[in-house]
């Protein structure tokens, strides 16, 4: 992307999809500001992207969505009107006052002027008061929403704290077999790249070794490392939200034993493995 030449089409496509890095995005944006040719090309690409967007499978609107929208624009209009209405009313009051003042004329008419001004100011203040009241109501609603969301976040944090607390005891209830086999349970949301793993009854390993979790992509690409971990004295361990890319459909998950720093490719044997039983999202 050089200042004196046009932006390559492929970079413009990525720019239109906000798929460039921030630096590249800024460079393209600066060029577009001065280049009509590239702006025209970008507009064409936007047309292409509109086509891609419209290829999305169509779904019916959620129940009540239309009513919620109409209510919102109705409330918006009501929220704008108080000041306008007050001003309109104040203008009417002024004109009525003017009409009344026309009979006595001269100095009596002049005497009405400050009163009409006061009346107009009072009505404007009244209008502003209504506006302020509506703003306060909205503020209270937002505060309630935030409080509700904070409660949900707090609950999520508590769940995570319990799952990951060093002092947590992990108890597996079984039908009485003397020594349960190692096992792990993974929860995975491919679209978000979110993964939580809870393992039990893992065998202890040397200090120079670690367990490592792997996501095996469904598209046949190389396994993606998804976190290293060591079991506690009871053989329990967890991996919570490791840094993995979003959007990877998983064919399977595996756990291997690797050098303490972890590996970029799994070392056989795979000590635990499992495949998703459903497509999830």
């Amino acid at each position, binding site marked *: 992307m050089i200042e004196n030449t*046009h932006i390559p089409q*492929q970079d413009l*496509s*990525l720019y239109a999809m906000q798929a460039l890095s921030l630096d590249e995005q800024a460079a393209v944006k600066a060029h577009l500001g001065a280049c009509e040719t590239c702006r025209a090309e970008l507009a*064409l690409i936007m047309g292409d992207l509109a086509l891609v967007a419209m290829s999305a499978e169509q779904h019916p609107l959620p129940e009540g969505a*239309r009513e919620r929208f109409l209510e919102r624009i109705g409330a*918006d209009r009501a929220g704008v009107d108080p000041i306008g209405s007050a001003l309109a009313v104040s203008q009417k009051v002024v004109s009525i006052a003017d009409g009344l003042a026309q009979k006595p004329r001269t100095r009596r008419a002049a005497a009405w002027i400050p009163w009409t001004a006061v009346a107009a100011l009072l009505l404007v203040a009244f209008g502003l008061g209504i506006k302020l009241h509506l703003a306060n109501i909205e503020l209270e609603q937002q505060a309630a929403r935030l409080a509700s969301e904070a409660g949900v976040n707090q609950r999520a944090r508590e769940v995570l704290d319990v799952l990951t607390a060093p002092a947590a005891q992990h108890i597996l209830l079984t039908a009485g077999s003397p020594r349960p086999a190692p096992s792990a349970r993974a929860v995975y949301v491919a679209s978000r790249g979110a993964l939580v793993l809870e393992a039990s009854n893992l065998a202890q390993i040397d200090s120079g070794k670690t367990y490592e979790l792997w996501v095996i992509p469904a598209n046949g690409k190389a396994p993606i490392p998804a976190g290293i971990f060591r079991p506690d004295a009871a053989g329990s361990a967890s991996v919570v939200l490791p840094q993995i890319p979003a*959007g990877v459909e998983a064919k399977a998950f595996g756990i291997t034993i690797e050098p303490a720093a972890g590996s970029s490719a799994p070392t056989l044997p795979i000590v635990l493995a499992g495949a998703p039983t459903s497509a999830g999202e």
Partner: protein
Amino acid sequence: MTEDPSNPLEPLERSLNSGSTSPGSAEPETGDAALINGVLQRDQAAMAAIFDRYGRMVYSVALRVLKEPAAAEDVMQQIFFEVWETPRNFVAGRGSLAGWLAVVARNRAVDVLRRRKPSDPVEEVELAADTNLAADAERNIMMEKVRTHLDTLPRDQQDQVQLAFFEGLSHSEISAQTGVPLGTVKTRIRSALISLREAVQA
């Protein structure tokens, strides 16, 4: 740059609006421009008509990206509210209202998905041609044509367009995730869009 500056939507408009060639594509009673003018006059009925016409499409695009109905509805409600609040941001020459709404819906949904601030003000989104896709029949035909073409692309190319467009991944993220070189990702996405443009022109 592009040798052929024509927009892919134009031939469709010609073919669908030519009456005898497309008897099923009835012109809507009120055009988009008239409805936007109504919104400029603070006409709630005009705004409701725009919502009725495009609400489902905008919601579906947002849902495709976010996969959560509540979040998709939030995006949809906000976009239409912005149309209501600042209808001047959509002016003649900015492209079809349908296309504009579809692109803004995708961008806003990706912003939510990536937990980032709205990146582009709506007034910066501009499409090349003012094309009439206001009738359901026209949009449905267009959607089907696009879907059919996208299905014909090689699987890798489909995946990369989907990752960039609906998952909002950057080209470097796509390259890292798929193991495909950066330059190849760029080329495939661009060629997919070009072939799509040619397909709807055909």
